[in-house]
């Protein structure tokens, strides 16, 4: 600023340095914060009085006590003699088990249905539209109860349906053939995972090479070597067995194989079908958001269809798809708490039982909130990272 510019007329000032606006702002902030603090203090003092009247000690000491609650279907080893803390961990594992698998399946199904809605085949696009409209407009809890009732109405283990050899569907749930995975098998899978990381680095290097001289360098020989040949060699060297365990009916129940309990199966179906309807709409609008000119331009360059989709259309569609997809993933995770309605023991259900057994309402609900806030932040963090990676780089 030059010194001879016209100076604004001096503002009227109250209280020295504070202008009127600042003073007003300060007043509102003090008022709102004051009210908030007063409300919290009021609730807090009531709670303390009520708790001492009911002789409930606050704090997380109860987590070390024996839980004594049975957990029917758990990923981790658990017995009622374990502590509440371990019961919570088992509950978190159960929540993650349904959320992670649900997210993967819902993404696949939702993408297929979203693409079907855009199909030139009239019948397919109509069917996809009916699927989306129906599932979106019926409450998830109702769908969940519906699936659970159907699950219970399935035949008993003796007369189980066998849609495919080795797969049984009965009121005990879905039983699938499985490969038992122990430390030796895990080491082979670990090698493959390590291969993925190395492959990623190699691919990046190949791309930078191509950027320099324009010569394409295929990555697939490295992929074959790292993802198939290397684990195979390790497997043979260590002598790891990959025998499939076939379930069989013995007496009234099944032995062997992988069992998905009816509660888990019903919850998974309900979450996946419901969320896939929303994902389908996101995918559809994402693909439609790519301007027609991009298709035309790619065609004019004479690109192959798959290349065009992978390199031109999808990267642009993903920019529109990823942010709403994040909130669908968060919704699915939060909706998994409906498990409590059908008795699948996720973290909310276990917190609820704990709360009834010990009366530690505040601690139990604080734990639920902490778990879900952590999961939500984790998903948002990952998706924001992914979004930043695929975002448009403007010059």
């Amino acid at each position, binding site marked *: 600023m030059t010194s001879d510019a016209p100076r604004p007329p001096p503002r009227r000032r109250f209280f020295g340095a504070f202008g009127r606006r600042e003073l007003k*702002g300060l007043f509102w902030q003090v008022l709102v914060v004051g009210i908030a603090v007063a409300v919290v203090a009021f609730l807090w003092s009531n709670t303390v009085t009520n708790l001492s009247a009911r002789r409930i000690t606050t704090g997380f000491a109860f987590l070390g006590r024996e839980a004594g609650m049975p957990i029917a279907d758990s990923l981790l080893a658990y017995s009622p003699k374990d502590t509440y803390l371990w019961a919570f961990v088992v509950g978190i594992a159960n929540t993650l088990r349904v959320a992670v698998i649900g997210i993967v399946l819902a993404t696949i199904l939702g993408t297929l249905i979203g693409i079907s809605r855009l199909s030139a085949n009239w019948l397919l696009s109509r069917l996809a539209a009916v699927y989306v409209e129906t599932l979106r407009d019926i409450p998830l809890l109702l769908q969940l109860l519906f699936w659970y009732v159907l699950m219970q109405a399935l035949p008993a283990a003796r007369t189980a349906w066998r849609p495919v050899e080795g797969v049984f569907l009965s009121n005990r749930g879905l039983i699938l053939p499985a490969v038992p995975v122990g430390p030796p098998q895990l080491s082979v899978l670990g090698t493959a995972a390590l291969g993925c990381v190395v492959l990623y680095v190699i691919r990046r290097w190949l791309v930078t090479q191509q950027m320099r001289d324009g010569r394409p360098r295929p990555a697939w020989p490295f992929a074959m070597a790292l993802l198939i040949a290397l684990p195979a060699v390790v497997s043979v060297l260590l002598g790891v067995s990959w025998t499939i365990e076939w379930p069989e009916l013995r007496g009234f129940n099944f032995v062997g194989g992988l069992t998905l309990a009816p509660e888990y199966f019903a919850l998974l179906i309900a979450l996946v079908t419901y969320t896939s309807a929303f994902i389908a709409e996101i995918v559809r609008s994402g693909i439609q958001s790519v301007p027609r000119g991009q298709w035309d331009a790619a065609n004019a360059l004479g690109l192959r269809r798959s290349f065009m989709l992978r390199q031109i259309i999808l990267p642009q569609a993903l920019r529109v798809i990823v942010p709403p997809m994040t909130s669908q993933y968060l919704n699915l995770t939060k909706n998994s708490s409906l498990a409590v309605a059908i008795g699948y023991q996720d973290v909310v259900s276990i917190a609820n039982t704990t709360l009834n057994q010990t009366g530690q309402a505040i601690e139990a609900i604080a734990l639920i909130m902490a778990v879900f806030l952590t999961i939500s932040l984790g998903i948002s963090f990952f998706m924001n990272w992914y979004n930043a990676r695929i975002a448009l780089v403007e010059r």
Partner: protein
Amino acid sequence: MTAITDVPDAPRAARRPQIGNPVLRWLRTNLFSSIPNGILTVVLLAVLGKGVISFVQWGIANAVWLTPANDSSACRAVRGLGACWAIVPEKYRFILFGTYPFDEQWRPALSVLLFIALFYLSTRRALWRRELVFLWIGALALISVLMWGGVLGLSFVSQDRWGGLPVTLILATFGLAFGFPLGILVALGRRSKLPAIRSLSVLYVELIRGVPLVSLLFMASVMFPLFMPSGFNIDKLLRAQIAIILFAGAYLAEVIRGGLQAVPRGQYEAADALGLSYWRKNRLIILPQAIRHVIPPLVNTFIAFFKDTSLVLIIGIFDLLTTAKTAIIDPAWQQFSVEVYIFVAAIYFVFCFAMSRYSRSLEVHSGAR
């Protein structure tokens, strides 16, 4: 699955000459445009045909539509082969109105009609004026009088006897009616320049949106009594209603914030230049524009609440889903829960579908402007 090659926006191969029978031409372009497409159509038709035939057999041909009161023997005879729709005439009064006194059930029925009329009037563009607020206050007051009674010669009905569809509508509508002003305040707070107010708003929104509604409802049913001075107790329905209002407030705040961001900067500057105070600026200039922008997402949020109110089942409040679940506890009818769930799903579907159609038409309309 067809490939993405069939995207309507994708450039098509050279257009075929428009000759021949229009029906055949339609079939050819829409169902049999290529050999894989033709195979897909045939497969889909076969699957669809099989599904429709077995549904018609179960739901219509072999179904039992009416039975003598309290007698499910006819239904049990066709169990597994045909549907037992007779359970709907048998139980519909309980499913729709719960344990509301039987002779007084015209009152909740009238309330439901009032709700529907209120929703219908709110969709009329001609009525989008400030007076709509008074219409809402009047209608909600009238519904409260009808449901509670105690005046005008209506007998008093305590809210623990309410149930069914009116409870679902009450939870969703009052959630919106109270959550909306709350959402506006929080949205303004989140965009405020005052750090303390902004951080309180962010804390509220992120905390509520970060946790499942189930845990808020648990909190309302278990922790609320702990929060209040001893001897002071609020009814369970009201506690759930408070939880839903707080929940709605956080989600609506985010929707409204989107609208606030869409108002051009010049509008703020012009309002400031006129010397309007903060509240007058927002009330007269900013909010009317912001809310118009976000009406379609507001309707979608409302659909979501309407479905989410069903979660009160978990804390044992008699909404539509809970009455349905309770209706089939009756041993004689226990096996026919699928029919009851389909009936209730149809009710939810009608409400949500109508609202989502409306929201779609708004979007098309605003896009055309």
